[in-house]
């Protein structure tokens, strides 16, 4: 896929996502989804909803997505789908939503393309930010187990993860041992959570109705799944900063394993939010649909797989809700896994950012990242912590480039 076709893919994805938001059948932001019943009934002002949407999304676009697009050269879903949520909800007509959503997607795609024109030395150095992360991803299930049930569970999952990592390393399989260890650890977390089972509770009729109503989103989401699958295969799109860094560094299995871990973590909360709202999640439970694209053997397989995966999640939502209801610890484990994603990624990117800033601007670069971290903590975190290392590395890179050029 040429970069220009990639940009066209972003534009189509943006248009479809904005159309889904306009119809109130899918949103990317979990916080907007529960508002969709009131929106569909016409009980919420579009302007008010747009303001609320931007208030809850702006920090993610600024600090979670944009810095990482710059350092990785890979699009981050939040930069496309959070703005298109707002475009869709704010637009007075469907055609306008599709058009403006397409423009937003096109701009996000263009931003990804711009990175290709930056000095290669600089962008290659920025990508080294993925180096700590590629090894630290094996901590995700361990931290989740620690949060879920304490030290004993963490030790058990650690043993599984370490054994898998060693086995894959000494074998001749040729796949990423850290990614395999993470997948094994994810499975262990799932098994631990699935051990407890309760009788299926009485489900309010409205929830079942909502899950079936969410299928109206398929007219948008099936083609959207195909587009994001192809974009993921082409290395253009990842679901969050960590996967973007890993994909930028061409660590596809690592990016996919993170996306699958994240998908499992979010399934309980996303499924419940679909059940209370009757609206689907624009890209599915983040970000397992993208994992299909990362691992697919070709563009066509990625598109087909992405469409099938996203459609299956929407169609299978009643089964997923039944699973979540019968295994209440899945939700508890989901919370623990989401906690692990934040803790491990914040730290890994801070370390990676400090390393890269130091490499670009010895001494001063390191001081910039640490200084920024201290300032952010002292000020009550006006920056999302994950952005600190990336912003420090970007600043060090710009200064180093200017010093070298002039």
């Amino acid at each position, binding site marked *: 896929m040429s970069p220009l076709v990639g940009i066209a893919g972003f534009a189509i994805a943006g248009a479809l996502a904005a159309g889904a938001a306009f119809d109130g059948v899918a949103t990317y*932001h*979990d*916080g907007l*989804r*529960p*508002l969709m019943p*009131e929106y569909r009934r016409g009980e*919420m002002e579009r302007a008010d909803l747009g303001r609320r949407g931007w*208030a*809850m999304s*702006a*920090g*993610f676009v*600024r*600090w*979670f997505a944009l810095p990482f697009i710059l350092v990785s050269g890979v699009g981050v879903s939040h930069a496309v789908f959070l703005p298109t949520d707002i475009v869709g909800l704010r637009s007075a007509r469907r055609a306008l939503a599709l058009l403006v959503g397409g423009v937003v997607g096109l701009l996000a795609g263009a931003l990804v393309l711009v990175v290709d024109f930056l000095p290669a030395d600089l962008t290659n150095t920025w990508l080294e930010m993925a180096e700590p992360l590629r090894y630290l991803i094996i901590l995700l299930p361990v931290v989740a187990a620690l949060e879920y049930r304490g030290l004993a569970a963490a030790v058990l999952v650690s043993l599984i993860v370490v054994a898998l990592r060693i086995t894959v390393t000494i074998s001749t399989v040729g796949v990423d041992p850290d990614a395999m260890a993470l997948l094994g650890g994810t499975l262990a977390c799932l098994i631990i959570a699935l051990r407890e089972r309760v009788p299926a509770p009485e489900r309010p009729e409205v929830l079942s109705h909502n899950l079936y109503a969410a299928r109206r989103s398929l007219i948008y989401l099936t083609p959207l799944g195909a587009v994001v699958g192809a974009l993921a295969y082409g290395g253009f799109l990842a679901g969050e900063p960590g996967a973007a860094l890993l994909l930028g560094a061409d660590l596809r299995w690592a990016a996919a394993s993170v996306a699958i871990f994240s998908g499992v973590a*979010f399934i309980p*909360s996303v499924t*419940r*939010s679909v059940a*209370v*709202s009757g609206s689907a999640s624009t890209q599915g439970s983040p970000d397992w649909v993208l994992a299909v694209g990362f691992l697919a053997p070709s563009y066509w397989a990625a598109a087909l797989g992405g469409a099938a995966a996203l459609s299956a999640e929407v169609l299978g939502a009643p089964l997923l809700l039944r699973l979540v209801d019968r295994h*209440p610890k899945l*939700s*508890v484990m989901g*919370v623990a896994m*989401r*906690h692990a994603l*934040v803790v491990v990624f914040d730290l890994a990117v801070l370390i990676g950012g400090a390393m890269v800033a130091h490499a670009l601007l010895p001494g001063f670069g390191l001081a910039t990242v640490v200084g920024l971290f201290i300032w952010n903590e002292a*000020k*009550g*975190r*006006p*920056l*999302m*912590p994950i952005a600190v290392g990336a912003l420090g590395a970007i600043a060090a890179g710009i200064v180093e480039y200017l010093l070298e050029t002039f």
Partner: protein
Amino acid sequence: MTRVLVAGLRSSQAARIGADTGGDSLTFETASDFDAAVAVASGEAEYYVGICQSGAGAALAMAIGLLGSDRARSVSTPGRPPSPTEIQQAVDEGVVAFGVPLDHIETAVPLIVQAILSERREG
């Protein structure tokens, strides 16, 4: 005694912070988002605090669904620390479910507690 239920990421830590700030007037317990929202809806608890990365998504989805959007509000968002005035205003306006971003637990939870205590004193 006012009962506050805390759900989501690092809910135990948030409950501890709430209990430390609230003294004897408030009790803090952890619960799942669904159970916590149901308890507030049925009057078994007075307030709900939900925590997720954004403070608006998983933190509040159940609460909005069961309590309504006018009774659930995010107290801050990533990149925008909580404001004591806005939190007090939310409590005074009858908001009973608060969404808190993970980054702001240490600052937002004490502010929510103070706002509830202030509203209870005046009410």
